[in-house]
């Protein structure tokens, strides 16, 4: 299955050509031994888009061997930082050139609106590539004083080697850029497994990798089922480092596989149940805007989504209706419709998952303030849903939903807010709104999260 397919762009005469093979050594090739493809769907319409090759373990071996050869011969220490910088900048230029096409393809496969994919996801991706292109010739070690006589000591930062990268389906292009940019900048080669739900833009970007002039084998793209390709990368003895973005549950498996195989380096970017605190001194209008954005952006399919909102009791009755009104303003619809500010959730599996949480919220006694009702039309739609009167032990409060579903609670004192916020096994992000500077500092210090 190394053929190309042409996908139609809705409400236009254009078509987007997608190569459906595995991208190894700068060529699209079929799987060597897996005849079963991955079927790719449009979440706005539930329609089949195309089938792409699914990498088997053997394909992963081939891709890893290609990346290793490139690391030994044409990349790694064989290429200067200046040259790496030039190539990464060139790739950024090409993505910028093709941003409309890439945005349309992203919309077809992921559902997010074209204009958001283009002006946010892709713009951010281009910026990210350019940022790391700038670092490529600035990888500094240190010279360290020993005794000025018998010994000089220097630290020499070196590329780790072949990196397996496993990315999710919520920001296909952007996650691709966040992974490839720094890895390439320091001289690593890559075997990239895009999500089997959203492989198309990664395949399209692979064409640009070749056009930019990266030597064969530097970046390889192998769509694959998680339990096959993902597991294989995590356990592969020929890979020096695995980077994974996705759910915490899968992250554990990656970590474990790395440990039991060759102790490869691991970096994980996992889930969150990020708290959002609104203190009484906050600018209510602005805070409501941010709170709405926090849970609705990307239809809530964001690891840092502010999915638990805690409002100080003195402003609760004023704040919540304002928030609800703003949330209702978001138009969730087909991404090719200019009016859409958000799209569907990405797949049937996600759709079922999010709705089961909504049902559980109702069952456990939370109050549905807005949303909570399924649409009848085709497409994996979830409208903005806000639960109030929540308790800490409810599933909707404890578990990551990954949809536009917000739980709203109340607090009295600052310490209570902090305790509520930190009462989670997650710690990806946290937000607070206050015009009291000292409070802002105190609370941000106290919040146990990687981004405040």
């Amino acid at each position, binding site marked *: 299955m190394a053929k190309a397919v042409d996908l139609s762009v809705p409400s236009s005469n254009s078509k987007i050509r997608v190569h459906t093979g595995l991208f190894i050594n700068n060529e699209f090739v079929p799987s060597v031994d897996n005849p079963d493809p991955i079927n790719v769907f449009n979440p706005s319409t539930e329609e089949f888009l195309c089938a792409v090759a699914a990498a088997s373990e053997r394909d992963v071996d081939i891709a890893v061997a290609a990346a290793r050869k490139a690391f030994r011969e044409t990349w790694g220490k064989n290429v200067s*930082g*200046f040259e790496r*910088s*030039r190539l990464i*900048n060139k790739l950024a230029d090409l993505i910028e050139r093709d941003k409309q096409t890439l945005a349309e393809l992203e919309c077809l496969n992921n559902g997010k609106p074209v204009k958001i994919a283009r002006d946010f996801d892709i713009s951010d991706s281009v*910026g990210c590539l*350019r*940022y790391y*292109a*700038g*670092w*490529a*010739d*600035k990888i*500094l070690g240190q010279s360290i004083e020993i005794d*000025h006589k018998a010994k*000089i000591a220097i630290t020499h930062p070196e590329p780790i080697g072949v990196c397996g990268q496993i990315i999710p389906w919520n920001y296909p292009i952007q996650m691709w850029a966040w992974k490839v940019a720094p890895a390439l900048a320091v001289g690593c080669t890559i075997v990239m497994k895009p999500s089997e739900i959203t492989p198309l833009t990664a395949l399209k970007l692979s064409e640009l990798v070749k056009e930019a002039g990266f030597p064969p084998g530097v970046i390889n793209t192998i769509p694959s089922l998680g339990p096959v390709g993902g597991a294989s990368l995590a356990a592969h003895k020929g890979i020096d480092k695995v980077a994974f973005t996705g759910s915490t549950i899968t992250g554990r498996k990656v970590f474990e596989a790395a440990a039991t195989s060759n102790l490869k380096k691991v970096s994980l970017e996992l889930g969150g149940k990020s708290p959002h605190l609104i203190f009484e001194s906050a600018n209510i209008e602005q805070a409501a805007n941010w709170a709405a954005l926090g849970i609705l952006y990307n239809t809530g399919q964001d690891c840092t989504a502010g999915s638990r909102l805690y409002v100080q009791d003195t402003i609760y009755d004023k704040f919540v209706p304002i928030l609800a009104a703003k949330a209702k303003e978001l138009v969730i619809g087909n991404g090719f419709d200019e009016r859409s500010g958000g799209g569907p959730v990405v797949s049937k599996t996600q759709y079922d998952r999010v709705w089961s949480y909504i049902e559980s919220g109702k069952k456990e006694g939370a109050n549905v303030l807005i949303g909570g009702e399924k649409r009848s039309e085709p497409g994996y739609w979830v409208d903005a849903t806000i639960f109030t009167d929540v308790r800490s032990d409810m599933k909707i409060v404890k578990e990551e939903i990954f949809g536009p579903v917000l739980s709203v609670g109340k607090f009295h004192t600052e310490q209570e807010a902090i305790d509520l916020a930190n009462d989670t096994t997650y710690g990806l992000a946290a937000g607070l709104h206050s015009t009291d*500077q*000292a409070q802002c*500092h*105190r609370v941000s*210090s106290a919040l146990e999260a990687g981004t405040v």
Partner: protein
Amino acid sequence: MSTTTFTYQFESQTFTGNVSFPTGVFIDGKFSAGSKGTTIDVINPSTGKVVTSIAEGTPDDVNRAVKAAKRAFDESWGLKVPGSQRGKLLNKLADLFEQHSDELAALEALDNGKTFNWAKAADVAASIGVLRYYAGWADKIHGQVIETHEDNLAYTRHEPFGVVGQIIPWNFPVMMVSWKLGPALATGNTVILKPSEFTPLSALRVCSLINEAGFPPGVVNVVVGYGNTVGQAISEHLGIDKVAFTGSTLVGRKIMEAAAKSNLKNVTLELGGKSPNIVLNDADLDLAINWSVHGIFWNHGQTCCAGSRIYVQSGIYDEFLRRFTEKAKSLKLGDPFAKDSYQGPQVSQIQFDRIMGLVDAGKKEGATVHLGGERHGNEGYWIQPTIFTDTKPDMRIVQEEIFGPVAVVIKFEDEEDALRQANDTLYGLAAAVFTTNLTKGIQFAHKLQAGTAWVNCVNSLQPNVPFGGYKQSGVGRELGEYALQNYSNIKSVHVNLGQVIQF
């Protein structure tokens, strides 16, 4: 205010094409005549003839430029523009340099006399690399967050100075533009640049590229004028917060003095050198000879870090001198635009006279002219590659920077003595050692009192490795991350988050 256009038809083995671009005093994105309406002649050192005249900038023009630069800093540059945008514009400027490489190289060859091939492969290529390197830094200007105690948030900000003055020399005209603009613009400063009055053409060409790249007006201003008028005005200007100078140590002192007397503006200087090049008995002789030739004869010896004092250990002295001389003899002097020329003329009559004056002093003081020592040809400012031997340490040709294709080759016996002689200079810009014993090479590098120590190479620079002088060769470092410090004002911010005091 009228502008003039410089038009020139190039027709040669290496470049054939027409250039045409506006010249003048470049302030606030526009070209104009200088305030006095006077002009400076631009002379082609290959012929000694005037090629064109360009507007002479004056202290009044500097005042006008400072106003424009200040306004631009307050409104459309500095911290009003994110680093990523500053980086984008610097990259765009690099793209334009690349698109116009041939043109810029041809202007260098015409104005400075260096060969077109060297100008393109070295000067212009390096300029592009430097601009791109600093483009990459623009969005990575980081201060620190420093732990003190929980009631206190302490951090540093690296802010741009504001308006900076930059005075550059004639030996690498366009490359010096890139070394100066790169870090200054990346960090958010606005600039008043004074190119050398001897070689203004490439900098003037760059002015149009600055506009084309999209820098807001006033961010870069270029005022061609004399050192004692425009250079002095910049150094003593109360509205300029920092001055960076590359040139002679003599003038560097004047700049530092003017800065001290006016507003104590921050000063960085990249000055002269008399860099030693030590060749040990166990050197790879081929390597040492080829690099040594590059060390003193490249760019006609008009390089601040030239390896102009060559110390050769006695075991290989005769062999080295013989083959070094052979190589020097084989260098092709000729028209900068000819395909096979290695060396063009010196940049000006003044420089020619100065170099020949020192050569004559060498002869008078009793050194042996082993090779050269005379003018080459009878048109333009060519000087023969010259080698002096049998020198004494106190001779002028051993002490003073000649800045021409004149090497002094000195025999030594003992390594410690070579090191002592090498360091026995007011200068400290660079130094080189040739040896196949790497441990020894590194030990020498550590003991040489120079800002750049080369082991088994000379005159070899990279955009990301710092460069600057010990002792009277300068203050501060250019290139690399270090150059950012030259253009950053460090502010410490202490935010009290709860500490209460009583009286």
